[in-house]
């Protein structure tokens, strides 16, 4: 029933405007696969190509070996959950769920059984006779999900299903979606621009930008070992600094040019010496025990967040790539209050070191990671 999805060299064009130039990906059977990226990156476009609502201008998309390019949307046997739920407002909850079963000519006894079990699964059986306007956002979302999975689709497509819900409900519902997806084991393509949601829910994530997939990997890999600068910048808060990669052999030196350098033993063997960009996340810093070592820094601002504190620090003598948004030379450093012994103060001058095994190093020209074992697709 559940199928895998193979996308090969898919192209999407609107007139002369190319949204997706050449995209390939393999979505495994039964996995929850997330398309994550900034708005306008083509993630919804790709989802709608899979659904059949957007035409495919080149390449192929196939479900378990069957090319679906020419199959119209209503014959693809997909389940789709929309951003605004798209519940039929003139039908009751139960009628909404039955709609697809009727279209698929499911015999009455089986349809009844399915409706019952799905309403139980999604916990909406008590609202069965209500009209959608009398349901909350979360309940409507459950109806949308129930309606989509009732037809036993080959693949389930979800287009930012949680973005109209409030923060607390969003967290609750993503758990619900994850649990139900695992229970029925259906191949799911999930579109979101919310990285936290993507990390929490996915088996694998495809990070997209400008119609191209930047990296496909598990949430853990995406976060800890981004394949390129875009992914490193898009996921989490990374600070970036220029450095020189020096030496040959298994252990290399990363020289930040301000008197601080670290030894790296996980750089790709074929990485050339020269200028690189280092991505450092807030939690990859620690206060130096020996103040003469590390980045000489000045704390300019701090934000207290309960579990931890974020310090905004100016690091002396580092050269930073000019980003598009962030103030160029300010780094974020977090201090976990579970283990911290003392807080730092705004105005303090402190030295910070980095954890060499955690930081990421990218080629300055291509932006691709130089860390051993990183790959575009995993």
């Amino acid at each position, binding site marked *: 029933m559940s199928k895998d999805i193979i996308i*090969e060299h898919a192209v999407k064009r609107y007139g002369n405007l190319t949204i997706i130039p050449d995209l390939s990906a393999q979505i495994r059977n039964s996995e929850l696969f997330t398309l994550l990226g900034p708005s306008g990156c083509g993630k919804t476009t790709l989802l709608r190509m899979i659904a059949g609502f957007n035409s495919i201008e080149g390449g192929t998309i196939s479900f378990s070996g069957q090319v679906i390019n*020419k199959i119209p949307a*209503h014959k693809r046997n997909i389940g*789709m959950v929309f951003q605004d739920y798209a519940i039929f407002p*003139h039908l009751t909850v139960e009628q909404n769920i039955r*709609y697809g079963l009727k*279209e698929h000519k499911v015999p009455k006894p089986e349809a009844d059984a399915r409706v019952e079990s799905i309403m139980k699964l999604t916990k909406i059986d008590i609202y069965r006779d209500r009209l959608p306007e009398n349901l909350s956002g979360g309940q409507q979302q459950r109806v949308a999900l129930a309606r989509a999975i009732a037809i036993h689709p080959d693949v389930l497509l979800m287009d930012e299903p949680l973005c109209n819900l409030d923060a607390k409900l969003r967290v609750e519902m993503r758990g619900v979606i994850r649990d139900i997806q695992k229970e029925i084991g259906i191949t799911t393509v999930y579109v979101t621009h919310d990285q936290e949601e993507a990390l929490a829910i996915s088996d694998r994530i495809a990070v997209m930008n400008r119609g191209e997939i930047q990296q496909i990997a598990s949430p853990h890999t995406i976060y800890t070992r981004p394949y390129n600068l875009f992914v490193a910048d898009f996921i989490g808060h990374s600070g970036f600094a220029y450095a020189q990669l020096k030496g040959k052999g298994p252990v290399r030196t990363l020289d930040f040019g301000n008197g601080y350098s670290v030894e790296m033993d996980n750089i790709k063997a074929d990485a050339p010496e020269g200028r690189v960009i280092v991505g450092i996340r807030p939690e990859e810093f620690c206060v130096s025990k020996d103040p003469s070592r590390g980045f000489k820094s000045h704390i300019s601002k701090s934000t207290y967040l309960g579990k931890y504190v974020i310090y905004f620090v100016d690091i002396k003598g580092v050269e930073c790539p000019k980003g598009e948004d962030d103030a160029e030379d300010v780094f974020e450093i977090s201090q976990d209050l579970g283990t911290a012994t003392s807080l730092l103060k705004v105005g303090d001058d402190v030295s910070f070191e980095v954890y060499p095994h955690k930081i990421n190093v990218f080629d300055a020209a291509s932006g691709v990671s130089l860390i051993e074992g990183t790959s575009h697709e995993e």
Partner: protein
Amino acid sequence: MKSSSLSLGKGSFKDRFYGWVQGINFWSVVTLVVFVLFALFLVYPLFKLLISGFKDTETGAWTLENFRTFFGKKYYTNAIWHSLAIGVGVTLITVVLGTLLAYILTFYEIKGKKVLQVLIIFSMMSPSFIGAYSWVILLGRSGIVTQFFADKMGVSLPTIYGLGGIILVLVLKMYSNIYLYVSGAMKKIDTSLLEASRSLGCSPVKNVVKMIVPLVLPTILAAALMVFMTSIADFGTAMLIGEGYRVLPVLIYRAFMGENGSDANFAAAIALVMVTLTACLYFLQKFIINRKSFRMRSVKRIVPKKIIGVKGVLAYVYSYLLVGISVIPQFTVIYTAFLKTKGTRFLSSFSLESFSKMKSTIIKSAAHTYTYGIVAIVLIVIIAVFVAYLSVRKRNALTSTLDIVTVFPYIISGSILGIMLLLCFNKKPLVLSGTAAIIIIAFIIRRLPHTLRSSVAILYQISPNTEEAAISLGSSPQKAFFKVTFRLMLSGVLTGAILSWVTVINELSASLILYTGRTKTLSVAVYEQVTRGNYGNAAAIASVLMLSTAISMIVFLVSTRKKEFSL
């Protein structure tokens, strides 16, 4: 798998061809049908009109003579200024009257507001020429009121005929349009906006000038445009009480119907002058309005306040007087329908004489009005829903040209449309002149926009995802449209359809050109009796027409459970 990039070039052609064949689906057929109708009944007639204006009636040769005649004589060119004077005069006065009434009824508690609202709708419920002839009955040379003043008081009232009378009739007919549009917009103003403005130091009076007026200005301008266009296109009123005050629609009608023999080409030339004029004005105003448009969404609705003192008295006098005067024609018609008549004069005793004399006319013309009206409204709804869908959901360079359908009746007045259709369909291959079909076509073209506008508006409120959801659940595109989108559109479509219906059964100016003895409608029958001076007979037929309109409105309001009527 490996060769996919190699075969891409070949495949893409095949893909495109296959996609094209598959593309011949329900919506392609709908698009095709809509465009064929569009070309046949809008583009071709317009083109024909353009050509006819430049041809000689006798010889059929190309000529500028028609225009030379028109622009060469003050007799004709004056009509342009007369039409503009009516347009400007009516528009300015209705905007002031209608906006003030909307303000009073929206912001203040006026006792009997519901009654006033019903009366306002009532005042709209008949063709304006019925208003014109009612005022002639009352204030004409031998009118009831005129006679009363002359006999009992020796006072001679100012004449109703000419510019003043036309403006009076049209103002009383159309201030209600401004009222309905503007009060609709005022209701959408969020109280918080006014409170915010007050908190920033605006006095209540300044609030009106600085907040309310600018917020409803786009609506006022849009409504004013409608009133302007309708009043310069109005034929019946000018014909009945204009007398020497010639306006363009009357000239066109006279040239075409010909007291001294028909000159279709000269009529076409005058029509072209008028179409050019209205088109320029329309697009100029549209340009101004578009630059000022914004959307409002009210969260906290305005709660009407109590009004007391001198202000209160003035507000009451104003609203009741205006509404009261505007329904006088309706009551005059009903009243006189039941009066005994002698020749063209009314006697003071009651009887059903007028009805019994007109019985067969009423039955026949009512049957025509209803059958043509029903056929037209069904087609209007179907076309409006499809055109709305194409222009909203399948928007591209081709379908966006469909927008002209909404503009068309604004620019082309009823008599011009009638002439255009006759010019095109009075000879083979498609002879429609004298048939019911040609009247129905005119109805559809003239009254489609009401339904189309409401269909477009409702469609914007329905998420396209709803239909896609149905498709993803296995419905074919057309099934998804009918089962979901169409079903959801229905309430909105009907709001416009009732307006189309009411204006269809009251249509006069195109019918008057297109009718024959066998296709006479109620409004044409009224007009015919009025021009013969049989005011009693006219009143009897007109009251049947008014009753039809009133029943339609009541059925609509009851069946949709709407509390009030809004545009």
